C-alpha cells in the first residue's frame, strides 16, 4: 500500500475528476468523442512509456518530440511513395532507433549529460525536418488511416495496441532481469557496475528503445488522420515528461512505475476536456499543465523530506 502510495493517489485524483465530470458534464462520456480523445492520447502514452524508462535510469530525453516529428514525416513520405503500412512502420522504427542510438552513444558511452545532449539533438532534428519539409503537410495514401479499417475498428485496434504495450512493458520491467537492471542503474550506477551490470549498455539500450518507441508513436499518430503535420511532435516531450513526473517517476532515477505514468497521463489528458466542459477557456491548458507538474514535484519533495526525518 505504502509502496504504491503515489500511484494510488494519482489514480484517486483521476477518479475524482471523472466523477466530477459525470456529475457536471455527462456529455463527456458519449462514446465516440470519448473514444477519439482516448486514441488521441495513445501516441503520447507510447512516448511516456519510453520517457519513464529513460527517467528510471536517471536520464532525460527532451528530443522525443523532434524524433516523433521526423519519424512521422518519414513514415508519411514512405507511405505517400506507394509503400504499405508495414514499410512505413519499419522506416519510422528504424529512424527512431537511429536517433535514439545517437543520443545513447553520447550519453552512455561518452558520459555527456543527457539534458544537454538531447537539447542539442532536439534542435538539430527539428531543424533538419524544417529544412527538409519547409512546413508542408504530407498526404497519406488511402488505406493508411485507421489501418484501412472502419474508424471504430481502427480506434479499438489503437486502444488494444496501447493497452497491450503498457501491460507488456510493465510486466517485463517488473519481472525480468533486464527490467530490474533499469532500476539498478538509475538507483546507483556504480553499485550496478560492481554487481556485474553494464550501466552504459543499459542506458544505451533505454535510449534506443526510447527512439524506437518514438517511431512507433509517430505511426500510431499517423493512422489517425489523412495527413501528416510536420509540427505534430512539438511540445510532446513536455507532455510525456509531465505525465511521468505526475505519475510518480522520480527525476533522480530508480523509483516509479509504468502504471503510475499511465495514471499521470490520463489525469493530465482529462484536465483539458474537463476545463472545456466546466466552461474554463482552453487557453489555460499549458498553464494548468505547468501547475500540475509543480504540484506533483512539490508533493514528492515534501514526502521525501518527511521520510528523511
Amino acid at each position, binding site marked *: 500500500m505504502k509502496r504504491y502510495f503515489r500511484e494510488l493517489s494519482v489514480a484517486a485524483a483521476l477518479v475524482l475528476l471523472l466523477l466530477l465530470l459525470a456529475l457536471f458534464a455527462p456529455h463527456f462520456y458519449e462514446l465516440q468523442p470519448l473514444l477519439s480523445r482516448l486514441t488521441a492520447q495513445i501516441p503520447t502514452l507510447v512516448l511516456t512509456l519510453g520517457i519513464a524508462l529513460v527517467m528510471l535510469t536517471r536520464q532525460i530525453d527532451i528530443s522525443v518530440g523532434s524524433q516523433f516529428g521526423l519519424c512521422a514525416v518519414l513514415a508519411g513520405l514512405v507511405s505517400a511513395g506507394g509503400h504499405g503500412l508495414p514499410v512505413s512502420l519499419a522506416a519510422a522504427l528504424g529512424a527512431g532507433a537511429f536517433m535514439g542510438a545517437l543520443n545513447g552513444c553520447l550519453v552512455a558511452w561518452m558520459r555527456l549529460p543527457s539534458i544537454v545532449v538531447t537539447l542539442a539533438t532536439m534542435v538539430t532534428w527539428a531543424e533538419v525536418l524544417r529544412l527538409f519539409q519547409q512546413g508542408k503537410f504530407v498526404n497519406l495514401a488511402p488505406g493508411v488511416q485507421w489501418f484501412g479499417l472502419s474508424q471504430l475498428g481502427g480506434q479499438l485496434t489503437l486502444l488494444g495496441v496501447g493497452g497491450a504495450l503498457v501491460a507488456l512493458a510493465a510486466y*517485463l520491467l*517488473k*519481472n*525480468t*532481469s*533486464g*527490467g*530490474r*537492471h533499469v*532500476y*539498478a542503474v*538509475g*538507483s*546507483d550506477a*556504480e*553499485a*550496478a*557496475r*560492481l*554487481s*556485474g*551490470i553494464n550501466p552504459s549498455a543499459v542506458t544505451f539500450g533505454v535510449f534506443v528503445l526510447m527512439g524506437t518507441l518514438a517511431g512507433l508513436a509517430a505511426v500510431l499518430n499517423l493512422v489517425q488522420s489523412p495527413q501528416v503535420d510536420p509540427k505534430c511532435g512539438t511540445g510532446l516531450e513536455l507532455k510525456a515528461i509531465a505525465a511521468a513526473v505526475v505519475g510518480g517517476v*522520480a527525476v533522480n*532515477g*530508480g*523509483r516509479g512505475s509504468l502504471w503510475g505514468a499511465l495514471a499521470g497521463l490520463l489525469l493530465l489528458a482529462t484536465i483539458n476536456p474537463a476545463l472545456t466542459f466546466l466552461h474554463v477557456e482552453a487557453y489555460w491548458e499549458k498553464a494548468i499543465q505547468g501547475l500540475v507538474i509543480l504540484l506533483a514535484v512539490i508533493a514528492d519533495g515534501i514526502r521525501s523530506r518527511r*521520510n528523511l*526525518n
Partner: protein
Amino acid sequence: MRQPLLRLSQITKSFGAVRALKGVSFELHPGEVHALLGENGAGKSTLIKVITGAHQPDGGTLEIGGTTVSNLTPTRARKLGIACIYQQPALFPDLSVSENIGLRLEGGAFFAKVHWKQRRKNADALLARIGAALDPETPVRSLSMPEQQLVEIACALGSGAKTVIMDEPTASLTQVEQELLFGVVRDLRASGAGVVYISHRLEEIFALADRVTVLRDGQSISTRAVRSELGAMELTEEELISLMVGREVASIYPHRGGSPGETVLELENVCCAAGGIANISLAVRAGEILGLAGLVGAGRTELARVLFGITPADSGTIRLLGRNVQVRSPQQAVSLGIGYVPEDRRRHGVILPMPIAENMSMAVHPKLFPGKWLRFEAERALGLRFIEELGIKAYGPEAPGGSLSGGNQQKVSLARWLATEPRLLILDDPTQGVDVGAKSEIHRIIRDLAAKGLAVLMISSDLPEVLGMSDRIAVMRGGRLVETFEGSTATAQRVMSAALRPS
C-alpha cells in the same frame, strides 16, 4: 603446498602520470585471513580494484585458482569466486534488501525471469546466517550505514565466494555488529575460503589475521605471519607500524598541556529529535580537549551537527562564553566562533576540485573579503601561511584539494576553521582513514591549539586516541551522555564498558 586462491606478482598500474602500483606481489591461501596494511595512498584500494576486475593492471600477472587471468571484469571476477565488501556500501538505495542481494548474486541474462519468492527466501536465509534482524522488503534507503554494511556482507556470503575481500569493514560498525562480522570472518576461514582483510585498526589485525602484507608507496614491502604454528605472536604493533611508515614512530601521543581556563561551551539538557539526541549537558573549557567517545550511532556526530547548526536543537540551553545562544545555521555557528571539522572529509570537509587556498578562505569570506570583493593576494597569503604552519604537503595554495593525500586534506579542513580564529573547535574523527605519520602530526597540531587556549571537542572512534589525547572524556550511548571521566582516571576498559553497558 596447496594451490593458492590468488597469486599476484609484480602488478603495476598507473593513472596518467601517477604510478599507483609499482610492483605488488601477494598470495592468498585457502583457509587464511590475510591482512593488507598500508598508509593511505599506499595502493590498497587500487589493488582491490585490480583483484575485483574494476581496474586492468598495466603489468604483472594475476593468477586465480592457479590459472593466469587477463582482462578480468567484475562479472568474471565474481564467477571466479571473488567477492568484495566495500568500505562504502555499494547498494541500490531505491531497491529492497532482497532485491539488492538478488541483483548482486543472480546477474541473470537480460530476459531471465525474476523469481521474487525465491529471492525473498534466499535473502531471509542469508540475513539469518549473519544474525542480522532486517526485513528483506525494506528499501535500503531507510537503513542505517551499519545495516547497509550487513547487507553487503550477506551478499558476499551468498555468492559462495572462495575469496572474500573486506575493505575496512568495521569503519562504520558498532561493537555488536563488529562481533557479528568477526564471527563471519572466522566461519569463512573454517570453511576453507580465503579472506583479504583491510583495516587501519591494528588490534583487529592481531585478533583476526594469519598473515599480514604491508604496502608502501605502491609496493609490497613485506609479508609476515602474525602467529607462529603454535599460536604465539610473532609480530608486534611497533614492528608493524615501522614497516608501514618505513621509520620508527617515536612517541605516539603528545603530552598534555597546562590547566584549563574559563568555560567556553556549556550545554544544558540539549535535545534534538531529528538527530536522536536528548538531555545532553556538558562543558568544555578553554585550553582543554574534551574527548567524546561512544559507538557509531551513539549520537556523537549528531551532537556536533546540533552545535554547528546543521540540525538545530529543539530544546535546552547552549551557552557560549557564559552567554545564552541559539545556533540555527552553520553561518551563525561560524559567527559565534564555532568551527567544525566534519567526519566525511571528502564530501563535507574539503571541496576537492577547488584550490586549497579557496577551501581555507571559505569560512572567512566576510573577514578576508570585506565588501564582498575577492582579494586574491590576501587569499594566497592565507593559503601559504597554513601550508607552512600545518606542514601541508602540496605544490602550492593553488593545488586542488583532491590532489592531496587524506591526511593533508584533513589539515586543509582544519586550516579552514583555524582561519576563523574560533573559540570552540569541534573535531569529528579527525584521524579516521589518515595514515600513521599524518595522524601523529594532526595530534600534535590539536594539542598545540589547546595549549594556545582553544576549547576542543574531539569525537573519536579510536579508543587509544581518545585516551591519549583527551583531558576529559565524555561517553555517549543511545543519544545520551552517560558518563564523564577525568583523563587520568579513564582506562580503555572503563570507557568501553560505559559505551557498551545496556541501559
